[in-house]
Structures are given as structure tokens and as C-alpha cells.
């Protein structure tokens, strides 16, 4: 095996500014997306994901400029998520310099959108973001349902069936977030991740719950994820990407560190 497992920092962007980044000590402007991207790139991030959390769709243009600015000087893959609802949204982000877009709610309400997007732009740039929540009891075999609206609204859709459908519809990658774990810092839902990774052909990015470096390694070793995504442990300067890679390498995980 020589394909490296990827570490992907995720940056939340609100109105063109990175939020959560306030505790960074040694960069000039903690909220500047380009500064953050530059720093993560230097630390060895394998990709960057920007999540546009801007509430108003009138401000979407701001995100386009963010992507343009980052793509001008950071030469690793860039994924943009949040508010991707139409083919025109995808085209705008790709033209700005994004390599992939992540589709979440729009896929749930209209699965054909994923097929149309993959057909139009190629599967390589279509990431389907899946928010899953465990609905089975502790002593039952795991069953997870797709939720929307930040984990508040159930859809009745079974996660394992859903990811296979998205794979068949042309998703190039699955970004899997455990809504039970998101924000908890107790680690990924590795059982969920492993089951998803086993039923799809495409790479799976584990997300939701990372609190320390062991959690990242567990996502790969137990969850069988192809990549791990984290926000807060990197944002607040608790760990550097380079430390995460050294930690994973010491546990026999192949990472890009050369």
C-alpha cells in the first residue's frame, strides 16, 4: 500500500471569515481564510474543506471570493460545502478554483441532483455529505438514520442504503458525519464509519467527534476510513497537522509526510 490516508482540516466560513479560529496565536489575522489555508498547507494538510455557514444566500458570492483567493496560492485540493443546491452553484465554485463540492441537504431532498452533478462535472468533484444518527438501542445491531438540519430532522432513510445509493448515483466520495458525536470530542463513531466504508466503493471521510490524535488514528484503523476530517483540534492550536501525522505514522498508518 502506498496511498496515504488523508488528514483534512475543516474551516467554517461565515460571511468570508473563518469562525472558531480566534485562539490562533501566531497568525496575523485569525479569521482570514487565506492565512488559515496557508498555515494548514505549510503544516502538511492533505486537503482543505471550507464549509460556508453563511445564513443568507445573498452572501454566497463572498464564498466565491474566498475560494478564489485561497486557490491562488494554496496548491492542494479544496472542497467547498454549504449551500450547494444547483448545478450553477457547483459551476461557480469550480470556476473559482474549488476541486470538489460537498452536497448535503440538496442530495437528501433530490437524489437526482447528485446524478446530474456527477454527470455534468465528473464524480471526482462530487462529495456527498451524510449526517447520520444512531437510531438503534445500545444492545441492538447498529442502525443509523440520515438527518438534516444539523441533526434535528429525521428523514427515515437508512444510512447504509443511502450511501450505496449515492455511490451508485455518482458520488466520488462520502463525507460521513456522526451527529451523535459531532462536537463531543469523544471520537468518531467507528462502527458507523466501518460499516459505511465496507459497503461503498468510493473513499469515505470520517467526521464528527475528534478530541485527540488517538481518535484520528482510530478512525482509520477501526473505522476503515480513507481520510479523517477535524475542525476544532486544529483550529485552537491544540495539535498541529504535523503532530497528527507523526502520531499516525507511529501507529503504522501511511501518511504523506515527505
Amino acid at each position, binding site marked *: *500500500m*502506498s*496511498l*496515504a*490516508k*488523508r488528514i483534512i482540516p475543516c474551516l467554517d466560513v461565515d460571511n468570508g471569515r473563518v469562525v472558531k479560529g480566534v485562539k490562533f496565536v501566531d497568525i496575523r489575522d485569525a479569521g482570514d481564510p487565506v492565512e488559515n489555508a496557508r498555515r494548514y*498547507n505549510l503544516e502538511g494538510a*492533505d486537503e482543505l474543506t471550507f464549509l460556508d455557514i453563511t445564513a443568507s444566500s445573498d452572501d454566497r458570492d463572498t464564498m466565491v471570493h474566498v475560494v*478564489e483567493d485561497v*486557490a*491562488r*496560492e494554496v*496548491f*492542494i*485540493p479544496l472542497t467547498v460545502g454549504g449551500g450547494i443546491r444547483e448545478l450553477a452553484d457547483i459551476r461557480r465554485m*469550480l*470556476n*473559482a*478554483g*474549488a*476541486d470538489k463540492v460537498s452536497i448535503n441537504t440538496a442530495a437528501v431532498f433530490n437524489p437526482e441532483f447528485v446524478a446530474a452533478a456527477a454527470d455534468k*462535472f*465528473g*464524480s*471526482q*468533484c462530487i462529495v456527498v455529505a451524510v449526517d447520520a444518527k444512531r437510531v438503534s438501542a445500545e444492545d441492538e445491531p447498529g442502525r443509523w438514520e440520515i438527518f438534516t438540519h444539523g441533526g434535528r430532522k429525521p428523514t427515515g432513510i437508512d444510512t447504509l442504503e443511502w450511501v450505496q445509493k449515492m455511490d451508485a448515483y455518482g458520488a*466520488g*466520495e462520502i463525507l460521513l458525519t456522526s451527529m451523535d458525536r459531532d462536537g463531543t470530542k469523544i471520537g468518531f463513531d467507528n462502527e458507523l464509519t466501518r460499516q459505511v466504508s*465496507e459497503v461503498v*466503493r*468510493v*473513499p*469515505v471521510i470520517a467526521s464528527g467527534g475528534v478530541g485527540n490524535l488517538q481518535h484520528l488514528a482510530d478512525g482509520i484503523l477501526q473505522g476503515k476510513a*480513507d*481520510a479523517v476530517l477535524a475542525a476544532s483540534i486544529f483550529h485552537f492550536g491544540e495539535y498541529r497537522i504535523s503532530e497528527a501525522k507523526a502520531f499516525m505514522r507511529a501507529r503504522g498508518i501511511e501518511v*504523506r509526510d*515527505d
Partner: protein
Amino acid sequence: MQTIAVVDYGMGNLRSVVNALQVVADDRDQVILTSDPAQVLQADRVVFPGQGAAGDCMRAIDEYGLRESITVAAQQRPFLGICMGLQVLIEHSEENQGTACLGIFKGQVKYFGDGHKDQSGVKLKVPHMGWNRVTQTQSHPLWHSIADDSRFYFVHSYYLEVETPDLLAGVTDYGFSFTSAIARDNLFALQCHPEKSADAGLQLLRNFVNWDGRP
């Protein structure tokens, strides 16, 4: 002062290719994104990127009337193929129930397969996506200052199988060893994306913009 043409036939994110070339090129160089066959023929060097499916790529090349100028440029001046810009140089791709390609080189483009596994039987994901090593199989000006086995960013489900081993410039392991770079005379082409491969990728592009087109 030179003109570097990036061929735009509507397939994929070319902004990053242009951005990266602008970073490594001389300030006086002109990097142009063009669909115009005449501009492709007039440029001092040509970058031929591409993403998406082989059938769509070939259709787009013909719709833009670019087949001849790409073929001529590929034989006459420093020419860099990237990703689909490598695959469609070959005779034939398995993609889209079989697609006839430009046929500049003999060979086939094949699917990794749904049951793709590594030597120990572990399932390998398709597309092959992420940072993998490129082993340099010949010394070449485009590998200048790039360590052997450096990692580059890949994203593809199909791979190249060339008939003439002397074309090989780099190989990569994903379940088996496949062709990740080819070189002949003034042409160099890669399966991976140098414009997304951080320092190693920028160095390769820097080597390309300074290359005299001789192996």
C-alpha cells in the same frame, strides 16, 4: 517571454492549473486559457489538462475543433498532459463502453475494477483518490529537483497501460504498479495533478515552463 497555453475544452477546474503556472512562470510569461485551436498552435508550450469521463472529453475536443492542434502540439513543442490529458493521448479507453481516443500512443486505458484489492486482499477504493508515490523510471528534466517516490495527488478510476515500455517515466502502486507518467521527445504526461500536489507539483510545473522540450 513566452506563451503557455492551457487548453480549455470545458472539462474541469482549470483555474488551479493556470494559478499554479502563474506562480512558477516568469513574470513576463503569458499564461493563457484557450479553446482556440490557432492559439494552441501558436503557443510556445502547451498544457493539456482534463477531468471527467473519456467519452465527454473526446466529444468536447471535437466540438471545439481541437483534435488536430492538440495532436500537432503534442509532437512539436513542450507539451504537458494532466490526468484525462494523459489518458486521451492513448488509442482506446474502456470508459463509456469503449472510447476511441487521440491515438498518439499505443495502449489502453482500463478500469481499476469494482473488486479491486491490494496484494493482501484488502479492498481498495475506486476512485484512487489522494496522495500516492510516483517512482521515477527514467531521469528526465521534468523530474529535476523532485525526490524519487515523492507523493502527488491523484483522483482517477481508470489507468493507463502502454505498449511501449520506453514511454514510461513514472509508476505508482495501487494494488499493482500502473503507469503514472509517460515521456517521449517533447511530450510529458501525468496521471496525477501537479497543480494540486503542493511543492512537488509546483516544482514539476516549474521544470515544465523552463524545459527546452528535449528528454
